Each structure stands twice: as C-alpha cells, then as structure tokens.
C-alpha cells in the first residue's frame, strides 16, 4: 500500500493540555508512506506512539516511511510513548525485516517524556535495509531542541544485527536534558558492571603512551 500525506495539522483543540492522544496518526505493518508537512502540537501522548510501525507476520518486508518538512512541538509523553516506534512482534530467530526509514528536515522542540525515547523507539533488532542496503534509518537535517526525558532523548533501542546501520547527518541538537543515561542515543540491554572507583591502571598506561 502506498500512502501520501501532505500538510496535516494536528493540534490540541481543547483548553486542556492533559487531553490524551490514544490512537496516533498511523499504524502500519506494511506500507510505503510519505508524510510531508505534518504540524503536530500541544498533545499529551499516553502509552502509544504517534506513528507506530511493526514488521509484518507474513512477509519479510515492511516497506518505507519518510517524514519530512514537519514540525513536532509542545508534546508531553507518558511511558511507552514516542513519535515513531518500530517493533518486530513476531519474527523468529532467523527472520529479518526489510525497512527504510527517513526522517528529513523536521523540527522537534519542547518535547518531554517521563520515560525513554520520546522521539524514536527502535524495539526491533532484526532489521535490514531495503534492497540489501545496510542503512535502515536515515536522520538528516533536523533540529532537536528543548527535549527532556529519562533516557535516550532522541533515539532508544536495541543493538541492530545483520550489519544494519542507522545514520544521523547534519542535525542540530541543543538543550537536551536527560535525567539518567544516554542523552541522545540509548542502547538498552543488560548492564555493564561499573565500579565507583576509576581506571587508574589503564589510565596510567594511556597517559604514558601519549606523553
């Protein structure tokens, strides 16, 4: 299915900032979508994503999604909420999901979240690019400003397998505040044991090499 959306304004029409958005803009498991000139403002998003895409159960190809020349501002996210989420609910160990995500020339500003990844949540790891390309996600020429979250203010997700890559180019990130780890990118999983003491032995070796 091909979907083209141009110039969609999605503002909170009520006087209350607490009106929750439950259904989002797009749910899809196989689509080629182009979303241009979206204007999303003043919404509270609870336990859902504005755009939610899932790898299909019956095909190894999701398709593509492109979001460009759009504005997302004054958004209040609860836990498990994001602007764009990518999931793979039913892939087996050997299966992959071909996808191409492009986030081009958008403005993201004044967005806060009580959880992780209010912008892009990648809860899929078996993605591959379309046409055997390694890149699954391209994020170019965007502005990210005044964003607050607990972890991973811009991108949170799992390690990608199959040599898949995510590319960020020519973006501007400013005034990003995260309460815990990983201001911009947070890759989740098990924990690394971190001692309260520092790495003096190794640090000394490095110092000697550089001196």
């Amino acid at each position, binding site marked *: 299915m091909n979907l083209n959306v141009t110039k969609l304004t999605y503002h909170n029409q009520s006087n209350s900032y607490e009106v929750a958005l439950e259904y989002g803009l797009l749910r899809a498991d196989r689509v080629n979508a182009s979303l241009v000139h979206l204007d999303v403002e003043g919404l509270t998003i609870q336990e859902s994503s504005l755009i939610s895409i899932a790898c299909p159960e019956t095909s190894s190809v999701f398709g593509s999604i492109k979001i460009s020349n759009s504005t997302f501002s004054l958004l209040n996210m609860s836990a498990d909420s994001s602007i764009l989420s990518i999931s793979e609910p039913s892939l087996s160990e050997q299966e992959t999901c071909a996808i191409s995500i492009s986030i081009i020339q958008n403005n993201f500003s004044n967005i806060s979240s009580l959880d992780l990844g209010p912008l892009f949540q990648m809860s899929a790891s078996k993605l591959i690019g379309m046409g055997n390309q390694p890149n699954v996600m391209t994020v170019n020429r965007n502005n990210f400003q005044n964003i607050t979250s607990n972890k991973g203010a811009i991108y949170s997700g799992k390690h990608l397998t199959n040599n898949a890559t995510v590319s960020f180019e020519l*973006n501007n990130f400013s005034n990003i505040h995260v309460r815990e780890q990983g201001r911009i990118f947070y*890759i989740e999983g098990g924990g690394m044991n*971190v001692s309260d003491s520092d790495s003096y032995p190794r640090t000394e070796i490095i110092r000697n090499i550089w001196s």
Partner: protein
Amino acid sequence: MNLNYFSNISAYSGGIYYSAPGNQGSSKLAFSQNNFSNVYVQERGAIFYVNDSGISASGNHFDNTTAKIAGPIVYSQNANLDISAFNSLNYFPSSDTVGSTQPVSFSPNFLDIEIISKNPFTIQEFSNSTFLVTNLTSTLSSHPIQGCSQVP
C-alpha cells in the same frame, strides 16, 4: 554520525551515546566532523559510554565536554578504539578534564601476572595492589612471566 551539532547537553552518564550492554564487539560507532560543545555528565562518559563497541572518530570538535568522574570524551569497559588515532584526528580546544587527565577512560581492570618457577618462592601482599615476590634466587631469564590484562 556525520556533520551534526550537539550543544548544551547534560546527563548522568553518556552525554551523547550510552550503550552499557556488550555485543561481542559487533557494534560499530562512526563519528566524523561533528561539533560537541558544552556537554556535561555527572559521572562517566561525556560523549560516549560504551561497553565493547568499536569506535572510529575523526574531524570532530569536542569543546568544553566534562565528565565529573571519568571520561570527558569516552568511558568504556572494552571499546575497540585506536587511542592514538583518536587523539590525533580530532580536536579538543577546551575539553575539561576534571577527574581524569585524558579524554578516554576505561573501567577498572587489573594485570594478572603468572610467574613460572622451578623453585618455590613467596609472595607478600601489601595494600594498594602492591606485592613483594621473594626467593626468586636464580636469574630472571629462567622465570617466564606471563601477563594478562583483565577486567573484573
């Protein structure tokens, strides 16, 4: 990550990129020609906090990046990183080095030393990971020493 501009960012650890879990060294981070300015973390890794990722970085400007405890640029357990290349290919005009004198810090590790001797010898342990080995009576060349750096 190429040609991005990061400014006025604060965090607990991992100001730009945080990935604590290991991935058998298969994760690769490539950063080139980015600008990082005024990045502050309360603990470790002002820019990168990684486990065993490979990191290649060139042409980046790190200006006023601060980690209060360690790693004003990188904090890692076992990153695959050419530190000499990292140091020479990037720019550090005024990175703060509070808590560490180098932009890269690694998590604690230790050196496991094994001395193979035909004759018995004694090892006396002092504080601060200091040891005294005695009764190595013959020439040192007859005692192969194997060293292995390990992380806890």
